[in-house]
């Protein structure tokens, strides 16, 4: 049985590792991407169930990626969890994201929230 895909778009490798572990603990296949361009290309090629999105990324901003996801009908079913250290910026994007999480994000909390976002047919 294939696990649902979760893309962890985070440029800090430590946090990307923690978020990946939390998503795996929530029974997702976690794929870590640390670059905005790569993320954009990857999103054009696949349909993840969950995206954990950092806003401060090199090259292409997290905001742009969020817009890309929301503009892409293929990704209608994809849940986006914003994980950011900038609370004010996060507030402005609250309506476009499924969840807004302000760093520091608890491992347990992320795992529990991610579990809820697992596709129903696959749970």
């Amino acid at each position: 049985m294939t696990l649902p895909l979760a893309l962890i778009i985070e440029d800090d490798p430590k946090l990307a590792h923690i978020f990946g572990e939390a998503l795996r603990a929530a029974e997702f296949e976690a794929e870590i991407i640390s670059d905005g361009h790569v993320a954009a290309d990857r999103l054009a090629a696949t349909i993840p169930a969950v995206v954990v999105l950092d806003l401060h990324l090199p090259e292409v901003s997290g905001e742009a990626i969020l817009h890309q996801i929301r503009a892409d009908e293929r990704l209608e079913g994809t849940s986006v969890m914003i994980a950011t250290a900038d609370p004010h910026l996060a507030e402005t994007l609250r309506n476009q994201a499924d969840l807004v999480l302000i760093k520091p994000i608890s491992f347990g909390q992320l795992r529990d929230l991610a579990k809820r976002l697992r596709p129903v047919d696959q749970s």
Partner: protein
Amino acid sequence: MYAWQRQSVPGAASFIVLVLAIAGWCLGYSLEILSIGLSAKIFWGKVQYFGITTLPVAWLTFALQYTRRESWLTRRNLLLLAIIPLITVLLVWTNGIHGLVWSEVTLDRSGPFPAMSVHYGLWFWVHLVYSYMLLLLGTLMLIRMVITFPDLYRWQAILLLFGAIAPWIGNIIYVFGLTPVPNLDFTPLVFSLSGVTIGLNLFRFGFFDIVPVARRAIVDSMSDAVIVLDLQNRIVDLNPAAQRLIGYPGSDAIGRTGTQALSSWAELLSQFRDQREARTELVKYEPDGPRHFEVQISSLLDQQEKPTGSLIVVRDITGRKEAEQALRDSEKRFRQVVSSISDHIYMTEFAANGHQSNLYISPNVATLTGYPLEKFTGDWNFWPTVVIHPDDRASAAKQVERFAQGKNSETEYRMTRADGEVIWVRDSGTVEKEAGGQGWVVYGVVSDITERKRAEQALLTSEAKFRTLAETISSGIFIHAGQEFKYVNSAAETLTGYSQAELMTLKFWDLVHPEFKALVKERALARLADPNQPPPHYELKMVRKEGQTRWVDLTTSVIDFEGQTAVLGTVFDITARKQTEEALSVALEQAQEASQLKTQLLANVSHDLRTPLNAILGYTEMLQEGLYGPLSSRQEAATAEIIDSTGQLLDFINNLLSQAELESGRVKLNIVDFSPAALLETMHSAAGTMARAKGLTLTTEIADNVPPTVPGDPYWLRQILANLVNNALKFTDRGRVDVSIRCPNAHHWAIVVADTGCGIPQEALPYIFESFERASGAAPGVHVGSGLGLSIVKNLVYLMGGHVNVDSDVGQGSTFTILLPLASVREKQA
């Protein structure tokens, strides 16, 4: 001798000379006739000429004096008259040499007695013509006078006329040889006859008393009535004025008794009937008003001092009486005027010898000075030495000196009243010469001018005050009219660098900086267009004398200056303020820049702190979860401490950043409709870990009356809730923390956080919302925190238009209630 005794009478002196001349002539002629020899006769003939030559001169002199023409008889005229007679005498006595008087002298024995027969020489005729001329002149004068003689002096006149004409007849007979007795000259005889007749006049009629003729003329022309009564009281004489008075012509009146004639005066005169010397005033009432008369009765005495009658003189003194009355009325009015005015009036006489005396001092002096009038009337020195103020006595004395020199003078000085009050007076005196006298009188008025002086002083003080003000004020003040400065104060000098004298030659325009000339022109034109709305003041640059530019604040107002429309301007130097403003502007820019940097810094700090904190938290939790293998109990406890500390650090960072944002005023609320359930969920997921770790029950509840969404800023509300819940968990060791959302009324929704913790002492309640303040009841070292949490809560809630309430019992727990509006804040922002 008679004439000698009366030589003081007019004509008497010359009459004596006349008689002596006649006598000399007669004597000489008699001796000539009686002489036998020719040479003897010639000698006596020559002697006669002393009389012959003197006679015409004496005759003319007598006539002149007698007819009151003495004024012609000056010494010079007399000498001129005597020239020809003197030459004649000289020639007579030297005739033997030249024969100018007698060309031939012979002895004529043809007559009854031997006589000297002469042929006259040239000079004799000169002498004759001259002598006749003088005699004729004198005679004519006398004839003319005689004609005007009144009847009373008729005999006097006839005799005088005879005396005047007789010598002529005799002389003419002799000179022209008409004499019945040959060679007998009648002239000395008839001249003797003249002497006799005139002598008769002297003796019989009191010839030299003819002077009363003049008196008569005077008496007749007198306006006073003069009546002469005899001893029987009969009128013997009266003048025309008396005739008019009694109403009778003179002819009717004479002979009547005084009582009859003066019937209308009877009553008045009766009392004087037997009086010989009396003087009284009578009033006679006539249709056109009363008439006043002065009546004088005096006895007439003859030379033996025996009464011969009486003289009544009646004088009409109505005019004088009326004048006297008018004078009394005038004086009364004058006194009334003097007493009705407050000024003091005086009259002082300055005699020629310098002596001063008070003629008059008005009673007002008492009112003016407070001293009784007697003080002044008695003592000339009282005024200058007591009344006049000591400091002003010298100047007052100068005024008296001027008066003493006969000059008008006006001066002002102080005087001390009896009650000690010092008053100012003006003393003004006019000098008038005394009629007929050598001295003069000063008419003076002394007026109280204290009020005027006070007003003047007040004005001076006020003027000085404002001048001092204008000259010491640091603002420049100027008056500008007709394109030039009319006044500039000292500060204007300092401000412009020009002296006052230099400024007076300049125009305001000259001082305006070129950049501002257009503005000044515009303001001036605007004021011209609407004088009622001048800009109160404006700022401009001016150029100082040495070229330096200064910023000034100019205030102008339109005033009337010496009848001219002028601009009153106040200028003060605002260069320093302008420089400060510029510096502040730069500082503000820098501050804004710094603030931007700070914001950016805060954002970076926030990001840079949160990221490593997340790594710490994440790895510790993964250790706890056993991702890296099972942990011993000690390791589990250690990881729990790490997580707890991380929570505290996070709280601190959050609050620090919030506080910084609040203090910088940069908190901008983003009010949106959000789900209160989501708010509680987020809170629970964050705080649940800590609650579990402490073994506390954390519950959440939403009341049924709460709508699905409520207005608010979710970010800051999460912050508020996190602070309240963290505090509750921190200060509660046993029991529970219950978080609920409800709507207490239609306009508000509320977040309530209740714990079963240690509670807050009553006295600490006022301070719990202050920064870095914690309730003293908390055990030190046990409950640590930033001390910012509640302060941030309170500030944010107020910012949201809400209210924080705390209800606490020590040992029982605390309940915090946040009351927030359901609509108003968003509406306000919209």
